[in-house]
């Protein structure tokens, strides 16, 4: 084989091998029980807000479509978990009107508080008071705001 032919062959093989997906190729050959790839690493919740999905399931079960729900997630800082919590709540509570209670600069949004039928509180403990606790569980509570 000439030098040029060798270089051509090596270039072709290198290009093909660089583009292949050996990780995916190996998956079917392994036992399915302990899966080769743990995609949970790509799921943010475990790292960001453990248990948050279960909390949102509870909020969904105790509200109905069209309800306006304000979100409280400690700490109330947009860049610290609140952004994730709000976006996630929008997804899990589709049909309800989920409102952020702070803006992207972490400033309060009192208009959204006033418009909310419910407040979904995740994280801080909620004690009884002048408001009604509709549901408590999964690390949070659902409060009905008095009109």
């Amino acid at each position: 084989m000439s030098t040029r032919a060798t270089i051509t062959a090596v270039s072709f093989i290198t290009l093909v091998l660089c583009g292949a997906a050996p990780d995916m190729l190996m998956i079917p050959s392994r036992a399915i029980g302990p899966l080769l790839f743990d995609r949970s690493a790509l799921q943010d919740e475990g790292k960001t807000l453990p248990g948050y999905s279960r909390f949102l399931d509870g909020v969904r079960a105790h509200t109905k479509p069209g309800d306006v729900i304000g979100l409280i997630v400690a700490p109330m800082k947009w860049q610290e978990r609140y952004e994730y919590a709000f976006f996630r709540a929008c997804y899990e509570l589709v049909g309800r009107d989920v409102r952020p209670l702070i803006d992207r600069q972490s400033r309060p949004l009192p208009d959204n508080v006033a418009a909310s039928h419910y407040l979904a509180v995740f994280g801080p403990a909620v004690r009884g008071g002048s408001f009604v606790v509709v549901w408590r569980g999964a690390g949070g509570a659902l409060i009905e705001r008095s009109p």
Partner: protein
Amino acid sequence: MTPLVVALLSTMVIGLPTALILGRRMPAIAVAGMAFLFGSGIVYFALLTISPFGWTLPRLAMVVLIVAAVTLTFAIRGPAPAAPRIRATIIDFATVLTLAGYALFATVHRAGEWDFWAIWGLKARVFLEHGGIDWSWLGSVDHSFAHPDYPTLLPLLYDFAAMANGGWDDRWMGLVTFAFAAAFVAVVRGLAALETTPWFASAIAFGLTGIACTPRIGLAEAPLIAFAGTSLLMIRRGLLFDDDDALLNGAILLGLAGSTKNEGLALFVAVGVAMVVARAWRRIWRLWPGIVIVMPWLLLCRAAHLHNDLVTGSVIARLVARLTGMYRPILGGLLLYLQHRWFWLALVVAIFVARGRDRERFIFSAVAVQLAIYIATYLYTPYDVLWQIDTSWDRIALHVLAPAVFAAALLLANQWAEGDDAQPESVVAGTRNGGPSLDEHGEARPHL
């Protein structure tokens, strides 16, 4: 899972008549891939059309039939030669195994990546709940994080799957991502078979599985890689071999790329420039079906006052400031955050080694222009530049890597085989119009 599988197979069936006619010179495996891609487009248009009236399955079925019939009427041509058959090799078995592994990877968990539940899946779920596109939701300032101006082919495809399922369930939505990857690899395998030997064609398809099998499950990367990649390869084929059907395929797929992500819209510019570079500017008008496909969403966005977040504020001021003051950190960021460096290096070396790269002017120009557009975007983005590069550059660069790899690998493959008697398996079955002509040695001769 069963309803979702039925929905995906239905999508293929919906697109099959169009694929059979437009892909009549293609091997069956390419037609199968195109069937899913065209079917996705038909489902998208059908749901977009009936959105003002409310989504129901009977209404959807009726519109799908009408859209499919219109597409067929437009696509019917005269008689064509028999579609070429291809020969499988052991490398194809490795490709199938890779795709099987990818199907498992894509479905081991419910679709849970950030951009799925914050953008693509979120919109799909909102639309499903609303029974159509919810323009007031898209227009709400609270939902600007979901990029309301993004085209909606993928969310509407999710909605089709959810309607078949009787409700929203994201547990198996990863199969949609897998379907696009498989469709793309199928088309690549078929196109490669038309221009080189079975072994090389198999190797090229295998070498593109890494791009097709994106780890970003549920996002629009897989659909865009499929639509953009097959579009460029079809247009390439149309230009090289005077294949009008391939050019039409490419134009339609380009429109569907533009209906998937804004990067697909940018691809129109890249393709236009590349056709000028390839001295095929007189045929740019043949891309008009793609324009027709993207226009409805663009007009609807304009009517609903949905704007792209990248062009907020003073674009010119940011552009000038970054060009004059930040080009070094930006260049550094582009190199630092490019994860598949060895692959890119292998591609550059391959292009350098290959003879006859002038033949692939169109592909290499299109890829270069598209990458330049992406880089230009970083110069005027309103967000932190290095953050934007870190979170997007490697992902979007892969959108157009596949066609470049295909072209380079094909040049090398045929260069390697030059001394052999082996013929591209379908060359002898090709005809002048739509297939390669043969020189005195029976080798494929391109037209440009």
